[in-house]
């Protein structure tokens, strides 16, 4: 028991992995073997990068001790601005770059306002949620522009690739970006500053870490990933909808929390956030395949989030209760 508590304590995402395996087995049985069929996996893995990239950014920011509720709106604003520019004759790449710069600017604004005026990022980014969503609708002019698929390097983003054409190119983008952010957090001095800043801000300040800049950088990375994920979705479906990404901010927080990230900062891992996102996709898809009324989906995610927080709090309490010999 001691060992078990200890292991889970050090790797809180392990519990989520265990649950994931259990659910996969369960859905495989309930769906009479359809769940793990190539056709279904193609669907699940094709959609996963969009949600998971948002979760990666939100997880990083939460570890740094801040929140971003504007990711769902940025998820829509970036591809909308890109599509509008392309509809005006801009080539693909410059449109993407402008879209990403817009994301970076929003992330910067989120961080700067939060720090400069010492307000909770919950509030700053709630404001940004409405503003970015409103901008999205305004620039769409009511008529979402269709993307000219001829001018998009589809093979780079949405084409099916890999063995058995199981994954889309976007999955490789996701893997690459997730790996970069994960290594940034675990293997670099910047990652050490992120954990210190989120773990105990006064100590980070006292040790001379530029905590304001660290936080702003995390806000920017989070916005950039959300915008990039939105772009991938739009390239997949062909047209940006002003309402896309609604509710995504909360799903991303749920993913991070399910994966063991703590709301007060300092504790968590990118891998955990990804596993949380995978769990959410698996539950979504598995319920449909098992012919459960799909309205239970949100119930399941909600229950799982609460369970994860309670479970992690219990583990930490047990961990503290365990005698640590000097």
């Amino acid at each position: 028991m001691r060992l078990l508590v200890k292991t889970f304590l050090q790797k809180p995402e392990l519990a989520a992995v265990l649950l994931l395996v259990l659910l996969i087995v369960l859905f495989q049985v309930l769906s009479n073997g359809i769940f793990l069929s190539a056709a279904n996996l193609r669907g699940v893995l094709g959609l996963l990068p969009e949600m998971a990239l948002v979760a990666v950014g939100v997880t990083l920011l939460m570890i740094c001790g801040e929140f971003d509720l504007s990711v769902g709106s940025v998820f829509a604003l970036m591809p909308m601005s890109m599509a509008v520019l392309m509809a005006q004759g801009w080539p693909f790449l410059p449109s993407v770059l402008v879209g990403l710069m817009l994301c970076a600017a929003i992330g910067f604004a989120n961080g700067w306002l939060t720090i400069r005026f010492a307000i909770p990022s919950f509030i700053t980014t709630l404001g940004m949620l409405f503003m970015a969503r409103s901008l999205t609708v305004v620039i769409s002019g009511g008529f979402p522009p269709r993307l000219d698929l001829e001018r998009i390097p589809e093979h780079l983003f949405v084409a099916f690739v890999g063995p058995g054409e199981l994954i889309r190119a976007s999955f490789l983008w996701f893997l690459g970006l997730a790996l970069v952010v994960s290594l940034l957090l675990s293997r670099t001095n910047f990652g050490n500053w992120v954990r210190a800043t989120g773990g105990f801000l006064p100590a980070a300040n006292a040790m001379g870490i530029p905590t304001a800049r660290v936080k702003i950088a995390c806000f920017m990375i989070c916005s950039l990933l959300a915008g990039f994920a939105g772009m991938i979705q739009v390239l997949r479906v062909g047209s940006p909808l002003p309402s896309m990404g609604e509710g995504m901010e909360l799903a991303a927080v749920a993913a991070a929390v399910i994966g063991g990230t703590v709301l007060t900062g300092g504790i968590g891992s990118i891998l955990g956030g990804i596993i949380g996102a995978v769990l959410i996709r698996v539950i979504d898809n598995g319920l449909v395949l098992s012919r459960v009324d799909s309205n239970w989906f949100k119930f399941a995610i909600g229950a799982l989030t609460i369970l994860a927080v309670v479970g992690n709090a219990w583990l930490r309490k047990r961990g503290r209760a365990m005698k640590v010999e000097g």
Partner: protein
Amino acid sequence: MTDAFRKAKDPVISVRNLHKWYSGVHALRGVSLDFERNEAVGLVGDNGAGKSTLISILSGLHAPDEGEVLVDGRPVRMKGPRDAMDQGIETIYQYNSMVPSMSIARNLFIGREPLKASFLGLGILDEARMRAESVAAIADVDLHLRSPDAMVGELSGGQRQGVAIARAMHFKSKVLILDEPTNHLSVKETNKVIGFVKSLAAQKVTGIFISHNMHHVFACCDRVVAMAQGRVVLDRRIGETSIEEVHEVL
């Protein structure tokens, strides 16, 4: 009043006429002091006397509103804790300067991580070196801990203070400031800290030891400075004063 301090021949740190306001609160009202090289100074005074404010200026956390700080006789303007550390001033803060959710090895090097490769100040951590050096640093202060990978949050108050001391010593400070390091420690742990402060002179380190407990100060310091309401009200060598006299002025 501001000139009632003991001048030193070769001070490692001097402060002159320091003033600090916190939005209306006049926390320091013209503090001037010399800290002699390799001397252990006890800084005493009631809560709110301005002790933490004084050391937060010495450690670069706050800038004085008036007055100046001299290190080795040269005026310095410190823009942050890093500037103070670069001058050889290490501080162990009253409200622990450790991150509980990080390992001992990670904590020891916050902001000063050894890197294997770097670009524009960002780089890959040399984790093997961090672990090895933290094991050595902890052994150097005679602390026995299981592993450099243990979370600081799992340590007792005394062990945490030990890690904080190990960190300060590892970076070879010439001045070590300890702000109420014995709060919440057991008698045994407290004695260890007192012994450590006593040993600083032999290691050629100047100590500034803040404490509520006069007995602790008299047990390990060469000199005692008493503060009240933002001013220095007494500055004596330990041999020239007594606990009673210090109590009287406070």
